[in-house]
């Protein structure tokens, strides 16, 4: 089987569950200490697709996207973008369009996966409403708590990146 290395950035407002999602997906756990200084936490996970195994280096970038205090260079060279919002907090998906525009300008070729997290806290019909509200289709509603759709979501971005 062929193996490829890919860098994925995980972005979105504070508290939406980015770190929790990675923790769900990547079972090994590293010290979070350096995160505060560096503003990024990096984990990796090998995703096996049909003929390719995708070695994903996931950069969990702290801070808001457009007014970020972390170096822009953290985004550079990424092959995939996962934008996470908190389905219970509209303030976290208000800026989806602008934020994604900003990041996609830096990474015009990278596929995007839009994720509404904390699915477990929101009734199904409300989730549909969020989908209608946004100008862009939500690719997955996930729960880092129950694990629902987490694996699926990461497989999806892995697949998109090798297409």
């Amino acid at each position, binding site marked *: 089987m062929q193996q490829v*290395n*890919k*860098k994925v950035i995980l972005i979105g407002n504070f508290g939406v569950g980015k770190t929790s999602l990675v923790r769900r997906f990547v079972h090994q756990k*590293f*010290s979070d*200490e*350096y995160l505060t*200084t*560096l*503003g*990024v936490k*990096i*984990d*990796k996970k090998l995703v096996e697709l049909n003929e390719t195994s995708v*070695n994903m*280096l996931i*950069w969990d970038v702290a801070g808001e996207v457009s007014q970020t205090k*972390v*170096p*822009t*260079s*953290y985004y*550079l*060279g*990424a*092959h995939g973008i996962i934008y996470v919002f908190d389905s219970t907090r509209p303030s976290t998906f208000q800026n989806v369009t602008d934020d994604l525009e900003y990041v996609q300008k830096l990474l015009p070729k990278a596929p995007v996966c839009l994720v509404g997290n904390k699915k477990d806290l929101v009734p199904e019909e409300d989730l549909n409403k969020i989908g209608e509200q946004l100008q862009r289709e939500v690719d997955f509603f996930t729960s880092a708590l129950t694990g629902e759709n987490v694996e699926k979501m990461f497989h999806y971005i892995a697949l998109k990146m090798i297409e």
Partner: protein
Amino acid sequence: MNQEDEIIKQLKSILMEDELKKQEELMRQIELLKTQLNKNQNELRDNLAELTQPVISKTVQNEIRQSQDTLVDALQPLMGKMVRKSIQDEFAKLTERIDGEIDKTFSWNNIKQMFISFWEGVKKGDLVLKNINQMSVEEVYVIEQDSGLIIATYSKGNIIDQDLIASMLTAIKSFIEDAFKQKTGHLDSIEYDNFRIILQNYTKYYVAIVASGTVSATSKDLIIEKVIDFAQRHLSQSERPSEDRLNTYLAKYFENFDSNINIDATSKQKSNFDWKFWRW
């Protein structure tokens, strides 16, 4: 040269009294800062640099830059290029010295702290850092600049998570280079405990060499020479060789490197000494 110095001095005192005062004041402040930094270094070790570095660096550098232009511009019509050059040199030296002071404090705390957590989080205990003075190249990574992904590696210790180390190293590098945005420079080495990571930058990728033991300036030069040679030979073609091929090449370059370099370094030092001896 002496005459030139004298001329500059006189011109300065005649024409540039204000600037001189400014400069003296600046120097005084720097001295003050230096003593303060040194005095408080121990207790403030954890956060001093982080808090003060950006402010100090900016203020000091701006002020120097500003007075540099004023001074040079005022003098140039009178004295021409030679003076301009020598004044610029002086300022460059001064700036360098200040940078040195600031960098020392900055890197000392932050990098070390970052490193301890990242290294301890990542390493699987396989990397044996030798507690001897002999320099040894433990790991070599060729890493893509932006993505932080590995292009090729050579490893003595079979570190399991080379990918992760390469990514973290890239993040640390970005972070530090970003913190010194005004400068065009690159981070060129990180020290931690008994090892040192030497970074050699190219446009699309950089090479990180993890060396343990005492890395003298001479050995560092030899390592860099080797890396440059490797890069020219194997990385500069339009079509990059496969990762496997590159790994093989890297191994060829660095497998027997330690014994050679340790001998080389001693003989180089010796020849330096001889040269001086004869000259005197």
